[in-house]
């Protein structure tokens, strides 16, 4: 009797961890790169090698995103090239959560089929499977698209592996420098020189359809704004008024540019230029420096830098005209605003205790997050998925490019051209 009583008391006094005959455990995780495996692709065609090491490109894309940790080939217990041969136990054994297998099959003289399948190892099921046609010239682009699909399936975020970046390089040449405007794949491959000059080139900007770049050129010892069609190399001068012509940026519909004009008296102000008619409409009149205009993705506002309050801060004005309204209040220097394509965030150059760094402001919550760590960081530009930024930083004497995730946690150095690299801009999603 006493025994029974004691038991019931202890049962009542039972502390956590033992409810209803079940262990209850709290687990706290941290974001880590997901371990995955990209198995070398199979190859069927003339010659010993496929035109592009597809698995290596996908591997590199996923790894560079900072969100995945692909395992090395030496760790793979099997190397299937077809979904039917995938053994989930083998992959579970090496602790990867997803596996990509595939092949490249030659179907004609310059025709191939790229095929891939993505598997969830512990769920033991296929997540994706696609087959795409490609030629030697388009194989890299097709591979990046495959990587985009894999990335989006596994993270829910749209991949940007198929996008491009444009930037300016300056290389010493004799007494002066050679400036080049370059476009490359976002992984640094496929560099194409778009424009070259012994006079400075500045402020490249992508048109919304990715077909054109606007930029400032100092040829002839004065600043002019050009719009150049990438495919043909044809360009036309859209603004060469007396004084400063600078800081071009396309409107969301691609028909207008916001530009900075200084005029003879050097009062820099924001103007909107119609590309077809070349007519301009003035948006600011203050005697302060008003420059670095950029459109909001909904086309309703233009954000710009102004030092009308003493030092540079970010302002915005309705695109149709109106009174500018100040946006940044933290810190003594905020300049070069750029909005994320989803309209939720604003990136800028921010002076943080003497260092010029990239900061990202949430437009709703209004909090500012410093996302870079250099002393002279500049020119932030969002990727079209609004999830990554590219910017220029310094390594010794030279400028180099880095990318950082919008939360500031994942940083990568971008391999880019030699010399001093600056002013990177990320292309929009390509429209086919």
């Amino acid at each position, binding site marked *: 009797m006493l025994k029974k009583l004691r038991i019931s008391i202890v049962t009542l006094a039972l502390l956590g961890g033992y409810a209803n005959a079940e262990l209850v455990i709290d687990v706290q995780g941290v974001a880590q790169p997901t371990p995955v495996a990209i198995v070398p692709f199979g190859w069927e065609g003339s010659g010993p090698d496929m035109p592009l090491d597809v698995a290596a490109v996908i591997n590199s894309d996923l790894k560079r995103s900072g969100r995945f940790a692909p395992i090395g080939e030496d760790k793979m217990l099997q190397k299937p090239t077809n979904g039917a041969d995938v053994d989930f136990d083998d992959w579970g054994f090496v602790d990867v959560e997803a596996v990509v297998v595939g092949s490249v099959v030659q179907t004609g003289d310059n025709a191939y089929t790229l095929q891939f399948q993505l598997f969830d190892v512990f769920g033991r099921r296929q997540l994706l499977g696609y087959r795409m046609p490609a030629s030697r010239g388009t194989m890299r682009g097709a591979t990046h698209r495959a990587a985009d699909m894999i990335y989006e399936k596994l993270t829910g975020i749209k991949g940007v592996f198929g996008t491009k970046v444009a930037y300016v390089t300056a290389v010493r040449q004799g007494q002066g420098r050679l400036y080049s405007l370059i476009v490359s794949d976002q992984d640094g491959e496929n560099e194409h020189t778009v424009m070259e000059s012994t006079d400075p080139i500045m402020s490249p900007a992508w048109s919304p359809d990715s077909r054109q770049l606007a930029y400032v050129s100092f040829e002839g010892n004065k600043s002019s704004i050009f719009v150049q069609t990438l495919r043909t190399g044809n360009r036309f001068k859209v603004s060469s008024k007396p004084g400063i012509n600078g800081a071009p940026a396309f409107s969301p519909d691609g028909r207008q540019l916001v530009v900075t004009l*200084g005029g003879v008296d050097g009062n820099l102000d924001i103007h909107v230029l119609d590309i077809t008619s070349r007519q301009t409409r003035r948006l600011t009149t203050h005697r302060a420096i008003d420059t670095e205009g950029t459109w909001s993705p909904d086309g309703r506002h233009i954000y710009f830098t102004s030092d009308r309050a003493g030092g540079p801060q970010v302002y915005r004005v309705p695109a149709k005209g109106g009174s500018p309204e100040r946006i940044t209040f933290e810190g003594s220097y905020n300049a070069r605003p750029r909005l994320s394509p989803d309209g939720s965030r604003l990136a800028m150059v921010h002076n943080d205790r003497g260092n010029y760094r990239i900061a990202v402001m949430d437009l709703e919550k209004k909090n500012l997050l410093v996302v870079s760590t250099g002393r002279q960081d500049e020119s932030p530009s969002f990727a079209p998925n609004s999830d990554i930024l590219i910017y220029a930083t310094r390594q010794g004497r030279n400028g180099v490019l880095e990318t950082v995730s919008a939360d500031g946690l994942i940083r990568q150095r971008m391999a880019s051209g030699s010399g001093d690299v600056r002013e990177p801009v990320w292309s929009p999603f390509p429209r086919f």
Partner: protein
Amino acid sequence: MSYFKLVAVGLLAALLAGCSGSPSIPDPEPTDTTYGDSGASTGGMDDGGLGDGEFIDDPSAGELGMVIYFDFDSSEVRSQDQDLVSRHATQVSDNMRVRIRLEGHADERGSREYNIGLGERRSQAVRQMLMIQGVSASQISTVSFGEERPASFGSSESDYAQNRRVEIKYTN
């Protein structure tokens, strides 16, 4: 590459080969690609600091100084340079056919296009001073290179000081 384009490129290349070796337009004095050679003897300056820095013309050259320097975050012509500006003003206003270009510059810190603005402010300051002293507006053009054409490539305070400047170029 089509045959036509090949010929066109070849012709152009041949034509250009006839030009002078410089990659830009033949010019008796290619001043746009040189730095610090504008006559001011920057060599005379030591990196002891800018606090009292006076950029002295090289007296042996016998020429007018062609560069005016500015303090940090300032576009005010310093008192020690006002005499220099006056002398240029006299030179230009004496001859209506003389044209000058004022090239403004900034140090590398901060955002590029904003620095174009700072350089332009400096050129305009010199321009205003010249105009007050009788130079006609039609004789003066301004351009700003912001941080794009540094006179000195480093990141020290003395490099920055050398880059905050307006260069005066006589264009004819």
